[in-house]
């Protein structure tokens, strides 16, 4: 869209603004606890950026991102556990519940480098294999959504079943250090927060570029008329695969950063419910925009924290109602709210309204993308 | 039969029709012509109730039906053959017909009648309509409309995609229908045929009626002139 031609400047301004907020403002005004909380939200937001790409642009309702989030998180947690235990030794929980022998597939993750590479590649690789199996056979739409959801359920069950090697329901926690730094030290906490913030901004930049690239256009084409694209000489499976793998990689990295920030990862963070929670944030923020998913996710996570502090039962109603209202009546998400208000009309279907608006009013489109 | 009073309509934010008025008389064909995108289909959809007009009224036999639902209009004797050979693809040909014959006492006989009219449909009656060829689907669409024994039939380019010999039959059919007490609102690109068959015509451009008159061969020249502006 033409709007993008004007976009770059604004996006850079937006990113700079985001950087100031995250690197300067947040650490100085927030307590350690709140900063770490925000850090967690940022991790969720990374998953959301990926979902925005796969779902908003690619039309693949990824209901199982918890799997990739979990993969990244467990990889990181395994490394932290091993390095806490010390060279050649087994993590505490293995001594407690198992034989105390470190399984062979844990061993490579003693190395921080292997761990890092695995975090970057493994979720994407698994997504690629899965994607090949699914997209090549033209499983799509609701089929894909349900399958990916079942996948999340199976992954959580698998983790729970392996008490002695994955910590079972307990998950992995009680990490003391992160790459040699003491995790209890506030300075190091701030450092980790900054890493998360930087990664999120980098992901936004990457996604923004993807959206305006030819690939981004192609992805929309595949979303809307997959079969037609086939007759132009593309294999839609591969196009979807790329978005799915990138989304998986983002979720994986998010999971990996979540672990030192939250200090724990457990199957409850990776199953069906958390996977849907990711989607909720994206839907509420606006699946079709760049920043919508990020802001929506942070908003929802924040609301959850504060509202459930005050009214535990009420939160469930609130979350349910929010989801219903936004998806049913404002499918473009909150990002489309002011467009709708401004135009004084009912929002169209999710794909049509914001895109059409963006196409018709380029200034508007790029505006949406930088307003942090 | 049908009277449109100052109808304006459109999709979402875009306006397509601007103050259309016309009267479709009893027992005759009323032809609507116009270039692509003139708003013909939009007009028919509005008449059928698929789009609610922003302003104006639609009267059927003097009764205001502006706010009624499409299926209620069907119950009042309207039938619609949409543009583009649409059918219920996953129902068989027979079920497509049965669907509208249900609850009519002479339903079965009506279906037979249609089979007589369109032998291809009888041949492929157990095939899913979605597997029929384009033209076969169009025949099915027309048959489905006729089964309801409408008083007013609305046809949107009914001969598009149909083989010439069948086109001729359909054209004959339309003419003969209008003689048996049926009103026809016909959108047609084939000016020659449209005017031959019709008692009255209107030409549309950009959502407005730009010229109108009584049909017949004599009108061809003025219509051609009206349309080539």
């Amino acid at each position, binding site marked *: 869209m033409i709007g993008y031609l004007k976009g770059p400047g604004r996006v850079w301004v937006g990113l700079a603004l985001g950087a100031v907020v995250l690197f300067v403002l947040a650490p100085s005004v927030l307590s350690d606890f709140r900063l770490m909380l925000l850090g967690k939200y940022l991790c969720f937001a990374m998953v959301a950026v990926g979902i925005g790409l796969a779902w908003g642009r690619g039309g693949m309702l990824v209901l199982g991102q918890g799997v990739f989030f979990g993969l990244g998180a467990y990889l990181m947690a395994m490394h932290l556990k091993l390095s806490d235990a010390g060279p050649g030794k087994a993590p505490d929980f293995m001594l407690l519940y198992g034989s105390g022998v470190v399984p062979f597939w844990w061993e490579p993750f003693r190395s921080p480098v292997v761990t890092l590479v695995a975090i970057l590649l493994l979720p994407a690789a698994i997504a690629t294999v899965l994607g090949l199996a699914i997209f090549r056979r033209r499983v799509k739409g609701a089929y894909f959504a349900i399958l990916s959801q079942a996948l999340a359920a199976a992954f959580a069950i698998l983790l729970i079943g392996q008490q002695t090697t994955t910590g079972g329901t307990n998950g992995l926690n009680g990490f003391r250090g992160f790459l040699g730094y003491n995790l209890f030290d506030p300075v190091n906490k701030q450092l980790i927060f900054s890493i998360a913030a930087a990664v999120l901004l980098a992901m936004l930049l990457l996604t923004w570029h993807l959206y305006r690239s030819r690939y981004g256009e192609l992805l929309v084409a595949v979303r809307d008329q997959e079969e037609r694209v086939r007759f132009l000489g593309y294999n839609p499976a591969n196009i979807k695969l790329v978005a799915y793998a990138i989304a998986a990689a983002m979720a994986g990295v998010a999971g990996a950063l979540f672990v030192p920030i939250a200090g724990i990862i457990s199957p409850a963070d990776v199953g069906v419910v958390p996977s849907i929670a990711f989607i909720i944030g994206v839907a509420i923020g606006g699946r079709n925009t760049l920043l919508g998913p990020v802001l929506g996710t942070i908003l929802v996570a924040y609301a959850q924290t504060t509202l459930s502090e005050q009214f535990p039962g009420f939160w469930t109603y609130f979350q349910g109602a929010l989801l219903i209202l936004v998806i049913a009546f404002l499918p473009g998400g909150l990002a489309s709210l002011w467009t709708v208000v401004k135009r004084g009309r009912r929002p169209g279907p999710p794909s049509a309204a914001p895109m059409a608006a963006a196409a018709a009013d380029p200034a508007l489109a790029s505006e949406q993308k930088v307003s942090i | 039969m049908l009277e449109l009073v100052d109808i304006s309509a459109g999709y979402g934010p875009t306006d397509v029709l601007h103050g259309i008025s016309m009267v479709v008389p009893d027992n005759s064909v009323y032809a609507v012509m116009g270039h692509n995108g003139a708003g013909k289909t939009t007009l028919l959809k509005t008449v059928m109730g698929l789009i609610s007009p922003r302003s104006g009224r639609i009267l059927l036999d003097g009764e205001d039906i502006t706010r009624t639902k499409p299926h209620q209009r*069907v119950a009042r004797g309207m039938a619609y053959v949409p543009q583009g050979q649409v059918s219920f693809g996953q129902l068989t040909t027979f079920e497509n017909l049965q669907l509208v014959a249900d609850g009519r006492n002479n339903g079965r006989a009506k279906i037979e009648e249609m089979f007589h009219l369109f032998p291809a449909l009888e041949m492929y009656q157990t095939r899913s309509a979605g597997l029929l060829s384009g033209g076969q689907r169009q025949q099915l669409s027309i048959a489905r409309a006729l089964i309801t024994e409408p008083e007013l039939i609305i046809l949107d380019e009914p001969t598009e995609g149909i083989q010439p010999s069948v086109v001729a039959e359909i054209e004959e059919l339309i003419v003969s229908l209008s003689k048996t007490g049926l009103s026809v609102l016909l959108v047609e690109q084939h000016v020659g045929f449209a005017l031959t068959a019709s008692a009255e015509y209107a030409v549309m451009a950009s959502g407005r009626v730009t010229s109108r008159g009584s049909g017949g061969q004599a009108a061809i020249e003025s219509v051609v002139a009206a349309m080539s502006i």
Partner: protein
Amino acid sequence: MDVVVGQLFAGLSQGSILILIALGLALTFGQMGVINMAHGEFIMAGAYTAYVMQGILGDAGISLLIAIPMGFLIGGVMGVILEAVLIRHMYGRPLDTLLVTWGVSLILQQLARDIFGAPNVDVGSPSWLQGSVEVGGVALASARLFILALAIACVAALSAIIRFTSLGRRVRAVVQNRELAETVGISTRRTDRLTFFIGSGLAGVAGVALTLLGSTGPTLGTNYIVDAFLVVVVGGIGQIRGALIAAFVLGLLQSVFQYSTTASMAKVLLLIAIVIFLQVRPQGIFSVRTRSLA
């Protein structure tokens, strides 16, 4: 030998439960394209109906027999309300219905908690369903036999309706093309509501049946919803006979896996089996062919 027959029966029984919970979905998801995550909560509502009926009537036998039609009614009415308030704004957006109904499901669960209390409640089985029937030296739980029969009855009734009645034709027509259906004289609003009524009603019936096997609580439906969708997916969307076969095959497989591995592993293996199956038949056991590009 006893164990083999026992497992076979367990598999069939599991299959009958799966088909019972998936049948309504085969209608609302398969036929209408609505991914109703609140289907699980309709099941829950059916179960609570049985609980309430038992509270009112006391006798477990009579209350069960009355609870089945009541469960159908309650589930159905809830479905109609859902359809009228939300779903009808969302036809053609299947993925969005998934999320909206997920929201509904959250709310209904919390509502159940607030109405019936968080702890699970128990619905007693009538005396004639307690214990088991000896067949060739193997004890088959009467409650499970009853559910098997109920499931078969429901499948037969539903397929007959969909295939042979004018209602069935209308339902199928509306699913495929709402606009066209209106213009051939079908009231889509009424048809939608009726379809949803039947589909959700079946969920209610499933809920009543489930009280015979387990406890009734706010999360009853959540436990089944994913399985139910998998049945529909494997069966082929819109295919009742597909769902039927899928349910029994999955039930038997699950029983085999469970016996030879662990319950957790069985779930994982089952999913792997499904993914492999979809490699062979991506559109499910039965699929509808069309020429359209969509």
